[in-house]
Structures are given as structure tokens and as C-alpha cells.
């Protein structure tokens, strides 16, 4: 890791020591040494403009903005903002072709640059200008960008940009050899072939799960802790494939479950009064097929070209559950087939679709059972529901197709493991590190399993009997107990994985339709309508948010930090906070999460109290000199 960092530095500056020193200053001023107040001002301004709209929407742009603002208050975000100080603006331009903020601010800041790329950059420079240190490079960068050198702007195709190419090689399949082979085959001229990349050739061994917990935080474990470093450059926009997480399959889940819902609305007896046309189902189904194909294709490309990144996603304790998502999406497609396309599906299709799920399950449940570092008490988190819900969806599909034994098999396996998971999550064991303290949309996954299980059991048994009703009522209860807590669903950064959290609501709506078929009354009909409307609204709001993030803010695919964590905690960091003892560590975490103006001083005092323990670098001491008047030992 030190080597790769060295490599990084070497590319950035003329000398090794000086840029890192300055980098240390820039990167570590975080909430700014003298600019904390401006930062706070900025935050307060955002807060005041956003507080009203927030109360009226559940998931909306305002929520996204709110969470952007919250993100902003997290100093580690400013890592991405801090710009390293190369000696010349030209060099800066060459290396930092584009900067990406994780959460781009709204146009509240009143930024109205002509082009969106420049907007993003100038947004940063505007923000950068909050900090009192001289930022000539920032302006230079801005000029450089807007002076029309857009040909070096980031890149969808890593083969073009030779400077970034080498740093991502470690994530490519066979460390980039495949890519070279392919480009050689295509006769492309490869420059700088002889550049040595000894560090990037290192084959990564499996990252232990503890590493993920140590390095990341947040409800989706995708935010880097401040003391950590990542292997890939933070300040560059990574190749698109590297930024494409597996949780993108969540979109497929969300849209295809909507297709099923509209199919049920159109065809079931209790909702005939709504006069829903079957065409809605057809349209949604076609859209979801297109989505599945697109996302699958892109992810297949990622598997081919960046297999190492896929491996790291697999070992991520939250992302691993999303590996079930493609197969569940296919199952949803089969469930939502419009009657006009095909009335019955062949049974062999079910076996084909369930085989990958079976293999994945054998692997993952076995990990839970056999203990070790990935045992359930340690890694349990609401996303694990995705691993379990696949069983029920498969049972539902199989029973719909008329199969008997297979659905019972998957239902039994799903039920047993769901019981274990449910108990574990409800317990919220202290050994469990990944449960977010605030509510996060991922909690809606709790509703998924019981609602799908009730439908599956109804199909297996032939009627909506007591077992199904029990499961359905459990789902309903969980839904309501989350819905009344909607105030807690705040302050989170939007991510594509949110799509995956919509399908439980759709599933609950479908289960309600089935229930109202059996127990028809005004209440159940009203409930059906309400739940369907809520599900549709949420999906639409999410769609709008996605579009905004995709085209306006252009951060739909931010740098995927979670897969780039280093294998070892950095020993001597140039960052402001490094882990020396547990107590100061937790103080550090607290500070990072909820930055307030005086924590700076408390951190300072902590630092000074632990001066003796500093085995740190010269840089640290120099920093201390700059910021504190305390004498150095």
C-alpha cells in the first residue's frame, strides 16, 4: 500500500516530500482551520433554505439535498474537495481533470456556469474559496478546464487516458493483462508500454470482513472513515465500470415489481372497480426488460474487465447480498409477464432461474453457519433480507407455474433462514456493527420477506389460508411501524441501492391485493388503493431523483469507495486523525460524524495529550506546529 501511495505521489509532484506535506495540509484542514466558521455558515444557510420543503415529502429532491448538506458537514467529504497543490497550474490541469464531489450541492449556491462540467468544478472552487488558504491552483484548474481542454475530461474509456490507466490496473482483470491483450488484438497502438507497474501487479488476497468494517461506515458501508486510505485516487473520476456497483440491479428490482403490481391490479377481482388497463403492465414490463438487459450487460463488462473490483464487492458484507438481485429481478420478470405475451411459462425456466440462487445460498448460508469471520452475529444487516427473499420469490413463481415440490423446498429453506435473520436483526446485537443507528430506507426490506412469503404460501396451498394471513399481517405491521417513523428517514445520501428498497412496498401492495381478493371489504379495498398509490408515488419520486442525479448533478455513479479500501490500516497517516487508541478513536469518529465548532479544540487537546505516542511522521509534527502553539517534544 505504501508503494502504491508512493507511486501516486510521484506522479503528482516534483519532489516526494513537499507535495505530501502540502497535501497533508490541504487534505487535513478538513473543516478548515480558519474556515470552520464559514463552513458552518454555509451549512446553516443550506439548512435554512431546506427545512420547510423537507417536512412535506418523504423521498424527494429536498431529502436528497438535505442529505447532501449533511454529507457536506462530514469532513471526510472534503477530502474530495481538497485539491493537492502541484507546483504549476498546468500540472494541476493534467492530473486533476475533473473533480467529483460525492454529494453535489444544489444550485442553492447560486452557481450558474454555462456547462455542467465546469459547473461542477466551479462549484468546488466556490466552495474551495471558503477556505482561507490560497487556492491559486483551484482557479487555475478552473481556467484550465474552461479553457476548452475538454478532451482530457474524464473518460468513459480508460484506454484513452494513459495517465489514469496505470493506477486502475490493479482492479482490472488479471491486472490489466486482459485489456492489453484485447487492445493488442484490435491493433491499437499502446504508448508507454514499458512503464513498470510492479505495485499494481500484486494479487489481492481476500480482504477479511473486519477490514470492511474498520474502513467503512454508514448504513450501506460505503463511506470511508477519515483515517483510512483507499487504493485508487480519490480525486479522480474513476472509469465508469469501476463506479458501477452491483446495487444498480436495484433499479431492475424496483421497476419489475411495479410491473407485477400493475398486472395484479389489472387482473384481480377485487380491483376491477379501478378499471386499470393491462397496458400499463405491458409497458412497465418492457421497460424492466430493457433495464435488466442494460444493467446486466454493463455489469458483465465489469466482470470481464474489472474482475478484481467484482471480487471486492463480493466480499463486502452489504454488497454481497445484492448478488442475489439480478436473479430476483429475472424472477420478477417471469412473474410479471403480461398475459398478452404468454400465458404459461415452461417449468424448465424455473429450474434455470433458481439454480444460481441455490448456489449462492449454499455459499452464503454456509458462511453464516460455519462461523468464522463472516458469521451472522457479526455481519447481520437488513440487506441480508435480499438473500432470503429470493427463496420466497422462487417459491411463488414455481407455485404459479404449477410445480409442487420445488417451491416447498425453497419455501422451507427460506423460512428457516428468515427466522434466524429476523431474530438476529431484531436483537440488534452489540456485536453487530452494520446496523445504522438512524433509520435508513434499507429497513423497508423487513417488509419484503413476509409479504412475498404470504403470497407464496397462498399459491402453494391453493388458498389464502391462515399461514398466509399470519405472514401477511406480520408484513403489514412492519410496514406501518416503519411508515409512522418516516421522520427518521432523513439525512442520507441518495444511492442507486434505494431502488432495491422500493420493492418491499410494492410487494406489500400486491399481497394486499391478494388478501382483498379473499377478504373483500371496504377496508381492504381502501388499503389496497392506498398502498398501491404509495408504492407508485415512491417509485416515481425515486425516478425523478435518479434522473436529476444522472443528468443534472451527474453523480449517479460516484467513485465506489467501498471496493477500494486498502488491506491494512495505514500505519503512519498524513491525515489529521489517526488511530492510536480506542478512546481517541471514538472521539474521532464522533467528531467526524457530527462536526461542531469546538470539537476542533477537543481534538487538538486529544492530540496533544497523545503526543508521546506519536510515532508519526515529520508531517504530523509540522502540522502540529502550524496549528497549535504547544511545544513539540
Amino acid at each position, binding site marked *: 500500500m505504501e508503494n502504491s501511495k508512493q507511486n501516486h505521489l510521484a506522479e503528482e509532484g516534483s519532489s516526494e516530500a513537499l507535495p505530501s506535506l502540502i497535501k497533508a495540509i490541504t487534505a487535513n484542514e478538513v473543516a478548515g482551520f480558519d474556515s470552520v466558521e464559514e463552513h458552518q455558515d454555509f451549512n446553516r444557510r443550506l439548512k435554512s433554505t431546506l427545512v420547510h420543503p423537507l417536512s412535506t415529502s418523504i423521498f424527494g429532491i429536498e431529502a436528497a439535498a438535505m442529505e447532501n448538506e449533511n454529507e457536506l458537514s462530514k469532513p471526510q467529504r472534503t477530502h474530495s474537495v481538497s485539491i493537492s497543490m502541484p507546483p504549476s497550474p498546468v500540472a494541476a490541469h493534467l492530473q486533476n481533470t475533473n473533480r467529483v464531489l460525492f454529494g453535489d450541492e444544489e444550485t442553492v449556491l447560486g452557481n450558474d456556469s454555462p456547462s455542467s462540467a465546469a459547473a461542477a468544478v466551479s462549484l468546488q472552487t466556490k466552495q474551495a474559496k471558503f477556505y482561507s488558504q490560497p487556492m491559486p491552483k483551484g482557479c487555475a484548474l478552473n481556467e484550465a478546464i474552461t479553457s476548452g481542454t475538454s478532451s482530457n475530461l474524464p473518460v468513459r474509456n480508460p484506454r484513452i487516458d494513459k495517465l489514469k490507466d496505470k493506477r486502475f490496473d490493479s482492479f482490472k482483470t488479471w491486472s490489466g493483462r486482459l485489456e492489453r491483450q484485447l487492445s493488442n488484438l484490435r491493433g491499437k497502438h499502446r504508448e508507454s508500454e514499458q512503464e513498470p507497474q510492479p505495485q499494481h501487479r500484486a494479487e489481492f488476497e481476500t480482504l477479511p470482513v473486519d477490514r470492511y468494517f474498520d474502513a467503512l461506515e454508514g448504513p450501506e458501508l460505503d463511506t470511508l472513515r477519515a483515517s483510512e486510505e483507499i487504493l485508487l485516487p480519490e480525486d479522480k473520476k474513476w472509469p465508469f465500470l469501476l463506479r458501477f456497483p452491483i446495487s444498480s440491479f436495484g433499479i431492475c428490482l424496483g421497476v419489475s415489481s411495479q410491473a407485477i403490481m400493475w398486472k395484479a391490479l389489472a387482473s384481480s377481482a377485487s380491483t376491477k372497480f379501478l378499471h386499470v388497463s393491462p397496458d400499463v403492465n405491458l409497458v412497465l414490463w418492457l421497460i424492466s426488460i430493457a433495464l435488466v438487459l442494460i444493467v446486466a450487460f454493463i455489469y458483465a463488462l465489469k466482470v470481464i474487465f474489472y474482475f478484481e473490483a467484482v471480487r471486492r464487492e463480493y466480499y463486502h458484507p452489504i454488497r454481497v447480498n445484492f448478488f442475489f438481485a439480478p436473479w430476483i429481478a429475472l424472477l420478477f420478470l417471469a412473474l410479471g409477464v403480461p398475459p398478452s405475451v404468454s400465458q404459461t411459462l415452461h417449468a424448465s425456466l424455473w429450474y434455470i432461474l433458481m439454480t444460481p440462487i441455490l448456489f449462492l445460498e449454499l455459499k452464503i448460508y454456509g458462511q453464516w453457519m460455519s462461523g468464522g469471520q463472516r458469521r451472522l452475529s457479526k455481519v*447481520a444487516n437488513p440487506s441480508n433480507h435480499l438473500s432470503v427473499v429470493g427463496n420466497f420469490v422462487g417459491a411463488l413463481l414455481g407455485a404459479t407455474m404449477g410445480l409442487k415440490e420445488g417451491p416447498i423446498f425453497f419455501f422451507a429453506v427460506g423460512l428457516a433462514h428468515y427466522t434466524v435473520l429476523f431474530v438476529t436483526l431484531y436483537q440488534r446485537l452489540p456485536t453487530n456493527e452494520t446496523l445504522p443507528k438512524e433509520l435508513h430506507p434499507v429497513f423497508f426490506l423487513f417488509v419484503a420477506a413476509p409479504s412475498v412469503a404470504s403470497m407464496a404460501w397462498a399459491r402453494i396451498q391453493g388458498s389464502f389460508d391462515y399461514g398466509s394471513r399470519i405472514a401477511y399481517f406480520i408484513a403489514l405491521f412492519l410496514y406501518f411501524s416503519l411508515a409512522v417513523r418516516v421522520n427518521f428517514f432523513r439525512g442520507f445520501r441518495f444511492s442507486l441501492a434505494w431502488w432495491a428498497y422500493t420493492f418491499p412496498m410494492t410487494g406489500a401492495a400486491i399481497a394486499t391485493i391478494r388478501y382483498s381478493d379473499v377478504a373483500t371489504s371496504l377496508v381492504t379495498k381502501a388499503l389496497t388503493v392506498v398502498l398501491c398509490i404509495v408504492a407508485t408515488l415512491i417509485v416515481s419520486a425515486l425516478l425523478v431523483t435518479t434522473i436529476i442525479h444522472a443528468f443534472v448533478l451527474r453523480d449517479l455513479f460516484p467513485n465506489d469507495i467501498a471496493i477500494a479500501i486498502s488491506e491494512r490500516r495505514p500505519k503512519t497517516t498524513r491525515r489529521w486523525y489517526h488511530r492510536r487508541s480506542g478512546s481517541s478513536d471514538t472521539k474521532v469518529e464522533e467528531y467526524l460524524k457530527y462536526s461542531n465548532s469546538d470539537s476542533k479544540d477537543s481534538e487538538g487537546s486529544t492530540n496533544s495529550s497523545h503526543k508521546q505516542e506519536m510515532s508519526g511522521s515529520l508531517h504530523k509534527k509540522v502540522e502540529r506546529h502550524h496549528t497549535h502553539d504547544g511545544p513539540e517534544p
Partner: protein
Amino acid sequence: MEIQTSPPEHHPPPPINQTVVSKFVPKRTKNLVPLILTRIHAGYFRITLSLGWQALLWKILLQPIQDSKIAIRAPELFYSTILTIIWSFSLVILIVLSLLYSLKCIFRFSMIKAEFMHHVGVNYLFAPWISWLLILESAPFVTPKHVSFVILWWIFAIPVIILDVKIYGQWFTKGKRFLTAVANPASQLSVVGNLVGARAAAKMEWREVSVFLFSLGMVHYLVLFVTLYQRLSGGDRLPAMLRPVFFLFFAAPSVASLAWYSISGSFDTPSKMLFFLSLFLFASLICRPALFRKAMRRFNIAWWAYSYPITLLALASARYEEEVKGGVSHAIKLLLSGLSVLVLLALLLLTAFNPKLLLPDNDPILLTTALPPPPHSSNSNSTTAPLC
């Protein structure tokens, strides 16, 4: 005979009456008996469990099947001969083992107590009773409604219930021995004990008793299943040598499926679901051979723990195949039955050729009970490796 209530470590074991023994046995084996008595523990009843279940499996497999397409109808005599041989062999082994164990109770009761205190060993105290219940059930000549069956059932079931009350009560009341501290895969053997009793009672047409035992077993199975899957304390509850005990994960649902089959009369949906669950867990364990690598280095008594869960699963698959006729279920049944026979034969051969390894000096259950040194340390059979 001394019955000691103090911790066993510091008491010298009472000498066995050497003169009595020396009259009847040759000199070399004179040292063997005390060694056996010292080294043996309830885990050795795994052998009788395996044999008993194998006998039961053959009894069920060889029941005349009316409309089987594939089985060749050999004469009845042939079947009953095989059955009788297997059953008698199991009976003999069980009697020998029970005698040895009762001798140990008499002469080394402190060690029995120590076994009871051990978190893994305590579950194997169910094993003798389960074995006897099995032998009872698989006897070729005893019908379940016969009065001797009933009497014998009571004789074997009462200790199971007593052990239940003691052990399950400890789980949720006792200060130190609560479930999360002591739970380990071998705890499922207690569940198996209840379910076997339930099954036998159902065969006797005692509905209430069987449902009682069934619900008792299932409730604790639920709690245990969740706890074991959570693996709260990490993987250090079970010594690496005892990893074969993981096979109990799929033994418990299989026997639950069989018990429910006996209670409800047909292999209906709950039985099927339990059978499928155990099939899945079996597949899941087979796909993880690395889990068992450490235990496979040297043959020891824990290897017998591989045999009876597979036999149980084969039994459940036989019942499943009766219900759901078809190529797949037939294939599963044949596969599992064949596997269980193979495993049993392999274990028998290994045991026959390596009797010394069956009495190791580093048995995990005995070690942690602070085994007192064997009385004759100059015995050629024992290796005086330090206990650690």
C-alpha cells in the same frame, strides 16, 4: 465405590478390584479394562447410534413395497435374515457398551459428573437412551403395541425427560450455563432425543405423549437453531476435532420430519419442509470440506458422528419417496442409502483396524474435564503424552 461430589481433579481414582479381574482375564488385558473405563465416555455411543439407525433404515427399506417398479422381489426370508443380522450386531455392541459405561458409572462416577459439566459432553448423555429406543424400534420381532414395547419405552424415555428438564432448564435459568454460553452443534442431540421419543410414542399410538415430546423438541430446536446460526461467540465453542458433530445440523430436521410423519400419519407439507431443510443443510455442509479438514487428520471416535445423520437423512428420503413417487426422489433415496451404508462400513473397518485410536489420550471431551492419569502409566497401549 465412591461417589464424589468435589471436583474430580484432585481425587485419586479408586482402584478397580484387580484380583477379581485378574482371575478371569489374561494379564495384558488386565490393564486394558481400567484404561477403557477411564477413556470411554458417552460419545462412544455414537457407534450404537449409527448401528441402531442403520438397522432401522434397513427395516424400513426392506419392508415389502407393493408397487415398486425397480426393486426385485427377493424372498422374504432373505430380507429378514439380513435384518436380524444387523439388528443382533447392533444389540450386542450396545449391550457391551452399556455394560462398560455402567461400570464406569460405578467406579468412576466423578468422571461422569465431569462429563455432565462439559458443554459438549452433556449432550451425549442422551445417546445411550436414544440407542436403546432405536434398538427397541428396529427389532424385527417386536410390534409397537406389545406391552413389552410400552414398558421398555417408558424405561428409556423417562431418563430422556429427566435430562431434558435438567439441561433445558439450565439454558434459561442457570447463571453460568445459559444457552449462549454453552450452545454448540452437539446440543442438537438433545432435540434428537426428544424427537426419537416422540416418534416411538406415536408408533405406540400414544398421541398426547408424542405431541408433548415433539413440541418440546421443536421449541428448543428453534431456539437452538437461531443461536447456532448466529454464532455469537465465534467458532471457538467446538474443538476442531469435534467438527464432524456439525453433521447434527441436518440430523435434527430429518428426525423431526420423521417424527411428524409418525404423528400425522402421512408425509405432508411440514414433514416435507423439514426434510428439504435438512437436505439443504446437508448439501451446504458437503460443499465445505475445509471445515472438516482438521478433524480428518487422525481417526477418532468423533468420526462416527458422520454416520448416523446421513442414515437419518436416508430414512427421511425413504419416507419422502413413498409419498412423492418419481425418479428424482428415488434417486435421492438410493444415493443417500448407499452413502450411509458406505460410511458405516468404512467406519467399521477403520475401527476394527485401529482399535487403539479409539482410545486416544487427547480426546477433547475428556481433556477439559481434567482427566486423572490412567492407573497404569507403563501400559503399552497408552502413550503417556502430557494432557494439555
